[in-house]
């Protein structure tokens, strides 16, 4: 594999000192992306021509002294569930085959405004439903650290592309851990901001009350840059937080003195977590303590219901959100169906993969008359209690740390036949989506030769604290600089 790309900050410096050009950087990304497809399959589509054109325009701006932002001319990849005018968006599903968007997602428009060059769309679990990027009509993405293993999911293509140093950053979406778990498996930084911080306009919905766009990068500081470009209020999303994007970069002081870190007692038990992972996470916490943070035990008593609650709500919402893929207006439509019902049935049977069908069926059941109270309404009640758990915990601490995932990257095919085991992969991540709070994963070491992620959760609206902690941690550790084999 060719020489990997540097961080956004390194690339910025190289552009500013005229050591390179945007065209050169973007060209390198495109070459690496193509070359890696055979082994990794991180991408489902590249926009080579458009990206090079945009890179040229950025170089011209720089010549004229009209640089739009620190990210101007730098490359990024976006997950295949965010729309961009004139580009296909397929959510790694056959049902959206042929769909080209006539409009651009707000988050992607934020990147365009900042001068960022989108080089392509990354692979994912179909409609973001999965934890391994195996449920893709394009075939699975592989983990750059071990090609027999999954990169996690559902934003596995984005995580793998950054981990393999194909691109310095990528957008993902996180409904129950779909940014943080693959970030953990691939040894990169991945953050899901507070629900509503980044507009969902143009993000193809999986579970509307949980979905949130976030970013992957090689460092917390780079992640902050990307978030600054995509966050902020958007009147087109009624659930958008009515505040401008905070200046995250300014909060990265490197100082952890006096910081109160909560350790949920329910998560720091040996049960259900790989011993190697837990040991690495404990050592990371010790590192943070040495840097001035104080730790205390907190309790999240309702966290044990998080998985059940999450899958009830997410699937219910998904069953409704995916009803629009009916073959009437766009995407796949079956050929030669006789009558409307047959057209619907065959179109959707052919267009959706097994995991998506499973979730539509479950979600439809949860919302059905006679079951609604027992599942959907009950789940919403537990969700309120869980939110209360976090509010109580944050009354006594500034951030909460946990393992991101109970294990390191698992093998391809290892869990596809047992969906329930796959769902447990999200055990530490879904709570943040249910509570709507910000959370990131940062590399904190290795177990079994594979990356381990440390999850840092902040109170609602406070992305800055988890970013500051991760940044400070990266100043005293070098786990985030480790490259998978074959990449330099």
């Amino acid at each position, binding site marked *: 594999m060719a020489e990997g790309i540097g961080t956004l900050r390194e690339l910025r410096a190289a552009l500013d000192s005229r050591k390179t050009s945007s065209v050169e950087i973007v060209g390198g990304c495109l070459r690496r992306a193509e070359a890696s497809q055979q082994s990794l399959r991180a991408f489902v589509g590249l926009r080579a021509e458009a990206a090079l054109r945009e890179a040229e325009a950025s170089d011209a701006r720089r010549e004229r002294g009209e640089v739009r932002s620190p990210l101007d001319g730098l490359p990024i990849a976006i997950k295949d569930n965010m729309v961009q005018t004139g580009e296909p968006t397929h959510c790694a599903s056959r049902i959206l085959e042929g769909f080209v968007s006539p409009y651009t997602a707000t988050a992607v428009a934020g990147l365009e405004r900042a001068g960022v060059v989108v080089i392509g769309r990354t692979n994912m679990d179909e409609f973001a439903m999965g934890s391994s990027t195996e449920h893709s009509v394009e075939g699975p993405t592989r983990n750059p650290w071990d090609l027999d293993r999954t990169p996690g999911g559902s934003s596995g293509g984005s995580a793998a592309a950054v981990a393999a140093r194909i691109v310095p950053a990528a957008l993902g979406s996180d409904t129950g851990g779909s940014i943080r778990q693959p970030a953990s498996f691939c040894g990169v930084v991945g953050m899901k901001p507070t629900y509503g911080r980044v507009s969902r306009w143009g993000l193809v*919905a999986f579970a509307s009350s949980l979905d949130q766009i976030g970013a992957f990068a090689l460092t917390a500081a780079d992640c902050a840059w990307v978030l600054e470009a995509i966050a902020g209020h958007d009147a087109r999303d009624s659930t958008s937080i009515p505040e401008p994007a905070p200046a995250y970069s300014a909060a990265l002081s490197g100082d952890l003195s006096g910081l109160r870190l909560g350790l949920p007692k329910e998560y720091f038990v040996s049960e259900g977590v790989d011993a190697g992972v837990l040991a690495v996470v404990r050592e990371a916490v010790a590192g943070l303590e040495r840097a001035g943070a104080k730790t205390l035990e907190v309790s999240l008593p309702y966290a044990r219901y998080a998985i059940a609650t999450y899958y009830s709500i997410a699937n219910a919402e998904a069953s409704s959100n995916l009803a629009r893929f009916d073959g009437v207006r766009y995407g796949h439509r079956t050929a030669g169906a006789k009558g409307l019902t047959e057209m619907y049935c065959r179109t959707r049977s052919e267009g959706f993969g097994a995991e998506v069908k499973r979730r539509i069926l479950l979600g439809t059941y949860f919302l059905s008359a006679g079951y609604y109270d027992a599942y959907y309404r009950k789940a919403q009640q537990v969700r309120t209690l869980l939110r209360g758990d976090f509010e109580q915990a944050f009354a006594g601490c500034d951030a909460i740390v946990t393992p991101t995932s109970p294990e390191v990257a698992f093998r391809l095919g290892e869990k596809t036949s047992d969906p329930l085991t796959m769902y447990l992969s999200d055990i530490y991540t879904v709570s943040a989506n249910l509570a709507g709070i910000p959370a990131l994963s940062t590399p904190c070491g290795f177990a079994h030769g594979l990356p381990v992620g440390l999850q840092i959760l902040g109170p609602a609206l406070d992305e800055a604290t988890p970013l500051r902690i991760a940044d400070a941690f990266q100043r005293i550790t070098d786990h985030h600089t480790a490259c998978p084999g074959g990449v330099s």
Partner: protein
Amino acid sequence: MSASGGEFEVVIGLEVHAHLRTKSKLFSPAPILYGAEPNHSVHPVCLALPGVLPVLNEHAVELAIRAALAMNCEVHQRSIFARKNYFYPDLPKGYQISQYEEPLATGGWVDIPTQGAGGAASKKRVRLTRIHMEEDAGKSIHDDAIAGADATLVDLNRAGVPLIEIVSEPDIRSAEEATDYLRAIRSILRFTDVSDADMEKGHLRCDVNVSLRPHGSDEYGTRTELKNLNSFRFIEDAVRAEIERQSETLRAGGAVRQCTLAYDPQSGRTSVLRIKEDADDYRYFPDPDLIPMLLAPEQIERVRSEVPELAEQRAERFQHEWGLSEQDAIQLTASPAIANFFQAAADRHGAPQTVANWILRDVMQALKELEMALDDSPFSPEALAQLISMVDEGKTTVKSARGLIAELVESGGDPESLIAERGLAAVSDAGVLERAVAEVLAENPENVELFHSGEKKVVNFLMGQVMRKTQGKADPAAVREILARELGK
């Protein structure tokens, strides 16, 4: 068969859907353009493209609150938009955004006219269950001539148009009451400027639930639902037909089955669209793309203070302030267009009863003959007031003025210049009139004789002769005066 159920008591409830008069759709910025090319007033939101989100139209909320307050409902400070899930090609998202568990408004009532004891005019109160907001679906076109055989075309121009659904309690007892209720709803929607409420254009649609029970029973019978009735006539006929159908079934000892029915105006019969084995399961749940709709008490009170005068209040005011008869007042408040026209013309002219007479007689007749609505006429109330004033002042005659009404209704114009152009100015020149009177008296000696013998009424005949001689342009007051003088000699 009468509209009542004979040995059975008829129990009817209505679900009325009314389009709100907004510029854009309920959750999409697409404009609402009636008559646009199919699929031309649409936006990615109306098409349910991947990734789009709904944003609530605040003006639609204002109109819905206004309607609810005008119908005496309690408007809730918190209401929830919910998804009603079902598959249909003209429903792009696969769900309709509606309200379910927490609607905008509950309670309320609408009064309809009825006959009290001894046939005296009275009012009956129909209670409302709720009013909620929702979006309309698109249209499916199955017509073979347009879509081709076995094909269906979809037009999404209507998809997302804001609606309120007004659900009544089962307080209605006859087909006539059902249409009276719908007329009352239409009047309120129009007087509050909430909706054009035009049934022909689909702004107002209704579903009617009908059941029968033995007189004196306090349990409801099994009900059937008549769908998509789009004229007052069809509603009345369909309800009558359904009452008849259910009566026959019950008289024969059968049981009414719960079902949805369509009415065929050709045959005058209702037919079963589908049997409801179980209640439909629409899997309602709160729409996670929308936050709860919270209304400040001040906002509700502000809208309350802005609810315009309704037909009933206007009619009362016309009676009390201007001394109009109840019948005239009711006719003049049949629509906001008429009421506003009358009010403006009367204000301008100063003699409301005179203006009322002109409108109810001449303007209405002209509209009827021209098959026009007052809304579509360029005739201004100021022009009517001016025309009547010219008659008052003897500048033209009643006959000439009446002759101009149809033209003014159809094409508008300035009465003063029209009268001048057409040579319709009243003749009040004393010399001309005196000559005409002298001629008429000379031509009709027998009538002059009759007058002198006490038949004072012949003066009217002589008047008519003078008017004819002057082609109706003579100023009648002046003629009467000269006639009286000449006959008195």
